[in-house]
């Protein structure tokens, strides 16, 4: 199912003559992706989308539109995560969980806007504390107790093994 696109930027064509790829749908899709991630500033979205497309072009060269879109989306994810990690003060790590948790909190809590991730101002600095309180904590620390299977002995039937 294709996510609907809104507010498509003006169509542009990438350089490349006869093999040129229509960049407008790609930009529109990437812009929509930014919006769904919680950004609302149209100027910021347009600029970030364009940056992502440029970076994707650098990576894949003259690939298909699909490839270009894929790379542009990956770039959007990378930039979003980078900005979020900076805001949260998260060190580079192979563990995707802390960043995913922050991303989830930012996107699923209505009061937050992702615009401030790229503002680099006081709001960005405050975001860390506010997000910290909303990070998903799905289970508490464990406090195990033993629960061994009981032994059931039967007349006429085989007993259970402990």
């Amino acid at each position, binding site marked *: 199912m294709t996510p609907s696109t809104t507010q498509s930027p003006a169509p542009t064509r990438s350089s490349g003559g006869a093999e040129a790829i229509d960049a407008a749908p790609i930009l529109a899709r990437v812009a929509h992706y930014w919006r769904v991630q919680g950004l609302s500033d149209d100027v910021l979205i347009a600029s970030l989308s364009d940056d992502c497309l440029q970076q994707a072009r650098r990576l894949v060269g003259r690939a298909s539109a699909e490839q270009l879109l894929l790379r542009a*989306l990956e770039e959007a*994810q990378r930039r979003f995560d980078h900005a979020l990690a900076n805001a949260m003060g998260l060190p580079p790590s192979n563990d*995707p*969980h802390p960043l995913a*948790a922050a991303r989830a909190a930012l996107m699923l809590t209505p009061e937050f806007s992702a615009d401030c991730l790229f503002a680099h101002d006081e709001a960005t600095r405050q975001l860390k504390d506010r997000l910290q309180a909303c990070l998903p904590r799905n*289970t508490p620390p464990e406090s*195990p*107790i033993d629960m061994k299977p009981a032994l*059931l002995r039967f007349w006429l*039937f085989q007993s259970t093994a402990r």
Partner: protein
Amino acid sequence: MSKKTFELSRGRITARRILFLLLVVLTTFLALAMITSAFLQNGITPTELMLLILYTLLILWVSTSFWTATLGFWVLLRGGDRYSIGRMPPTRGETVAGPPRTALVMPIYNEDPTRVTAGLRAMWQSIQETGRGEEFDLFILSDTRDPECWLQEEVNWYRMCADFDAHGRIFYRNRERNVARKSGNLEDFVHRWGGRYRYMVVLDADSLMAGDTLVKMVDRMENHPGVALIQSPPLPANHKSLFSRILQFASNFYGDIFVWGINYWQLSSSGYWGHNAIIRVQPFAKHCGLPKLPGREPFGGEIFSHDTVEAGMLREAGWEVWIAPDLKGSFEELPPTLIDYAKRDRRWCQGNLQHLRMVFAKDFSGLSRLYFLMGIMSYVSSPLWFFFLILTGFEAYVMSQTMPVYFFGDNLFPVWPESYVVEMTTVLLVTLSMLFLPKFWSLILGILNWRRLKGYGGFFRAALSVFLESIFSMLTAPVLMIYQSKFVFAILMRRSVGWPPQNRDDHRLSLWEAIQAHGEHTLIGLVAGWISYRYVQGFFLWLIPVLAGLVLSIPLSMLSSSTAVGQAARRLGLFLTPEEYDEPRIIQLLKQNLEIVEAADANPLLPAEVSKVTDPGACALHLALLPMRPVKKRQRHQLRALIYQLVEEGPEQLSPADRRSLISDPESLVKLHTLSWSDGKDAAG
């Protein structure tokens, strides 16, 4: 921890049980004496002997239920029972340090996430309104396998935490493997977090419990340190279809006398119904670890109906198990149609028949064995009634073919055959009375408590509802008898039915669905009707109520599945319940939250039908909750192959298990998310 008992003496417990058993046995004996006197006159034939055996078993079962209800009626006439957990004075035991902490645990398995979340939100709000919310934590123990349902559950859980500022108080976990179904799910909870809590309240996906009720349950456990479990009697609520509204009315109107009756003779050795009960965690962990039964399903393997066994284990370990008849504010939901009801019965039937083996367990007392037998009998009684009807018809046919002999030997005067119409009619009337009198008891209680009756629409509407409910239950009883007989035979033939999730949503049955489900019932009714009419006309007349239920099963099932008819009946004040008349706060909260949860899920930026994998927020949350698992090289290749298959053939070509594997792996999940945005298709289906 102490296991000090109450002031309730052993003698009183024994006296009550002896009284109950005497009443049951005497009633059975009297009914049996009458029927035997009729049979004995000309010597008992093998068919009559079979009829006697069947009748003994059936009348035992009917009189058990009748005397439970009648004792409950007696107790309520006298204003309640001082030997109930709500009225017993607190008992002293060893003081346990610290305030009690209680976990509300809801095991779920592929249930509707909207209803589950709305119910949990309502309960959480209700607990906070008591001012004692700090004592409770909430656990959603998911065994859900369906990938979309899993993702939705997570999002709903997170939104709930955010809306109530309950991060770190409301928890969610999805088991990687659902070993031992619900009992294994709970066991996993106890294993991992049991040490944090003194009590746990076990809920079902459709449970709804008011905060006041939960607080009262905790207080009672605190007051009685020898009690390991208190079962609240859940009432059905919030139903729309005619079928579920009739059942809701019946449970509500007649339920009290049965629950008080159960308390009367079971007292501190009561049972556990699997949900809406509070359990002391330590003894539960110590005694209720369920083993796998030797052999294969349906009689071996994991214990399906774990609740009865767990209650038995607690009782045998010296702990008390109570039912609390006075506790209100505990609700559950019913299947919306006759077919769904039968499907649920099929699961329960297997669980109860598996207890056949538990009857032979050495470490259980006679009372526990009786409970197991009662559970078994609630399903086995159907094939017994079925055989009883067939044999009665056969016997009537044989009798109709027998020519009476008026003159023996040299006697000049005829010897008139003796009539046993009086005895047989008495037997029939006694049996019918025992089936219908409990309804009458409830009506009498209603008349004596006018305020209560107002909640059922007043006397005339309540009486009319009782009458119509009796007709309805009379018509559906033969259909359920055939269903349950089939289930029992299938299980005895060792065909397991598994443990499929239950359908709780309202939906009107189509004609085709009804024909598929009830075609055979209609056919059986027509054939049995024709045979009895053709060969034993006298028996045919008696059989009409049974035949009517079978022949009308298709229209009856369709009509009763209708929510429009159910709502029309409500507008007329029929099958009204006090919860419909004056909606309790907890049900109001449920309705509000159903709207909130549905609205919250409507993301204006994403079409409603896209997969949750496409939603960056849901995807990030899922990734954050996934456990870190090293993936072997071979598994990695398999996962990549699945992604290729998904891209080339579409998500519908992947099995739910494959799709679950994909979203259980962080790398594959991110890949799927990106693909869902890049290729114009919803990669996760």
